[in-house]
């Protein structure tokens, strides 16, 4: 850091007056304390969920709740597998002697259950990944090109078109579930992954067009014009000059689209049955099968949370710039 000011005298930053007075130190500590309290408040449910996911069935329902417990993978294994009950009379001890047993087989055999296959939840999770991933990629790509066109070219009826795109967001999506359900049944899109992908893409498109247009508007045209006179075509200029500068906007848009598509519940419940069912509507259905498996539900919710958390974490640097976007003027 440059420590000389205009008069050439050195400033000792360690003794800046505003940092040593009692009052300012107090407010700083108060602020920090408040932040910690809010963070704890927000994170308790998450912690509870994570803890429950690693509890055995007995610990999960213990009263008072156990803070310290023997961690167990029961919840996760139960969620992802199909099992059958085996009693000692049916040869439970013989099964335990099998040398080819994996660690998860042992965990369940100790509970008197034999794993016979993967559960339907695995398929639902796969559906979720495909649906959310594909629709996010599509809406970001389409959104990027649409936003670029709206930003740079004199599109006829630009204002009306942009308002129309925005207007698709003005109603809560749930309102149109029944018409769409009827439409999809007619079109043969009911209970298909492609049906959900189309729906999520369209819903996210309005969002991504508007968000990305804002980002592209902020990139001065001169950069592309410089590339044009430097000997590049419009498309080359777009990929070489505009795209690298839109990364922030792309990251922010991707995360928001992904969160919507990943979390979406209402349409998924209405428009899917078996084939295309995604994870969100299937987690509660665990409730129904043989008592409430709290550990399994918590494991499902946590597993569901992790992918979005990873993507958000990976893009956090861009996101931070994306969220504060427009607040800082050049």
């Amino acid at each position, binding site marked *: 850091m440059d420590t000389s000011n205009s008069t050439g005298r050195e400033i000792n930053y360690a003794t800046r007056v505003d940092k040593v007075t009692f009052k300012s130190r107090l407010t700083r500590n108060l602020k920090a304390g408040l932040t910690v309290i809010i963070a704890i408040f927000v994170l308790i449910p998450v912690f509870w969920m994570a803890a429950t996911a690693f509890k055995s069935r007995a610990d999960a329902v213990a009263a008072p709740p156990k803070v310290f417990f023997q961690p167990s993978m029961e919840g996760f294994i139960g969620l992802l597998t199909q099992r059958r009950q085996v009693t000692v009379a049916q040869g439970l001890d013989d099964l335990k002697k099998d040398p080819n047993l994996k660690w998860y087989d042992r965990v369940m055999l100790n509970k008197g259950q034999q794993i016979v296959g993967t559960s339907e939840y695995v398929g639902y999770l796969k559906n979720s990944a495909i649906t959310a991933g594909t629709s996010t990629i599509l809406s970001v790509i389409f959104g990027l090109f649409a936003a670029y066109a709206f930003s740079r070219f004199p599109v006829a009826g630009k204002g009306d078109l942009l308002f129309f795109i925005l207007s698709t967001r003005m109603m809560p999506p749930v309102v149109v579930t029944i018409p769409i359900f009827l439409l999809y049944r007619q079109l043969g899109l009911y209970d298909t992954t492609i049906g959900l992908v189309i729906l999520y893409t369209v819903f996210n498109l309005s969002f991504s067009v508007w968000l990305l247009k804002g980002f592209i508007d902020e990139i*001065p045209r*001169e*950069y592309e*014009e*410089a*590339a*044009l*006179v*430097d*000997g*590049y*075509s419009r498309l*080359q200029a777009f990929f*070489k*000059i505009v795209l*690298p*500068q839109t990364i922030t906007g792309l990251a922010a848009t991707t995360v928001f689209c992904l969160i919507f598509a990943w979390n979406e519940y209402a349409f998924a419940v209405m428009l899917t049955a078996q084939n295309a069912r995604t994870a969100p509507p299937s987690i509660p259905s665990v409730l129904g099968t043989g008592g409430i498996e709290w550990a399994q539900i918590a494991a499902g919710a946590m597993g569901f949370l992790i992918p979005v958390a990873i993507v958000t974490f990976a893009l956090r640097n861009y996101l931070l710039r994306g969220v504060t976007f427009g607040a800082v003027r050049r």
Partner: protein
Amino acid sequence: MATIELKNVVKKFGEKYAVKPMNMTINDGEFVVLLGPSGCGKTTTLRMISGLETVSSGNIYLNGRDVTWAHPSNRDIAYVFQFYALYPHLTVWQNIAFTLQAQSVKKDEIERRVKDVATLLKIKHLFKRHPGRLSGGDQQRVALARALVRRPTAFLMDEPLGALDADFRETMRSEIKHLHITQKATTVYVTHDQIEAMAMGDRIVVMSDAAIQQIGTPAEVYHDPANLFVANFIGSPGMNLVKGHYRAGKLNLPGGGVYTPSDIWKTRIEKQLGDDQDVILGFRPEAAWVVTQDQLSAEVFLVEMNGSNMMLDLHLSDQVIIRVRANRGVNYSIGSRINFDLDPQMVRFFNPATEAALVME
């Protein structure tokens, strides 16, 4: 290298003219400055030459080739933008090499040419930096390097010094001029700063209201302005313009003064306007000198010390203020009356109705 020719080039935005029908020929190796107040169409003209703006009608020729509808990338023209437009995500080296990569120049050739041009502009030490972290002057040099490295047929520069500090602007001004002298590349340079235009241009194209007002060398536009706009716009301060009434060889000025034009001018005025007519007298501040007696008289209103000389603001009458240059050795007190005379060689006359200068055939 290249000649640039504009034939009846027009640009309209909706119903409004951005550039009225324009004809102009820029010769090979010439440094032409487009000069005018903001919004006069000079940047639009430059952008049409580059192809970044389409023309509404008319034709543009580069070396005789019609490029009116050619894509900017096919014109072999380099453009220096007002705010440089250096690609922020590329390093200085990548910025300069970017244009050569578009032409699929061999790698070692790129290396060599980027190095050569960077040596010329003294920016080799900046290769690995990103443009956002450079000073304005260094950004300017990189922008020039990016234009130079291509060896284009022509350079177009849009107020390239506009974003620099005043003192640094002069340094860069002479650097650009020096580059032009060594490279001998056809250059079209846009500015609103008439001092810059006078200092740099081989020829100046003065524009206003979307039209060319005058094309000429710096000396021509300074001494022989084609109309009142040019007379007023060029020079700081601009030409003194005083409306008077001409009758029988005498010009009656506001405030009761009488100026007697030279015999040549008398015939010109009578031939071009007629006797007993209003005419506008124009003269530069340095065309007037203070004399002890007779001639024109005026009241000293303000005295400005300009270093090498003094600028006097004189009240000819209550409404008419003229500015004349005076010897700095003398003390002029405000409110006193002084007499002055005009250099007959440097006096010009204008037609008040058409605002055009009287012809000096």
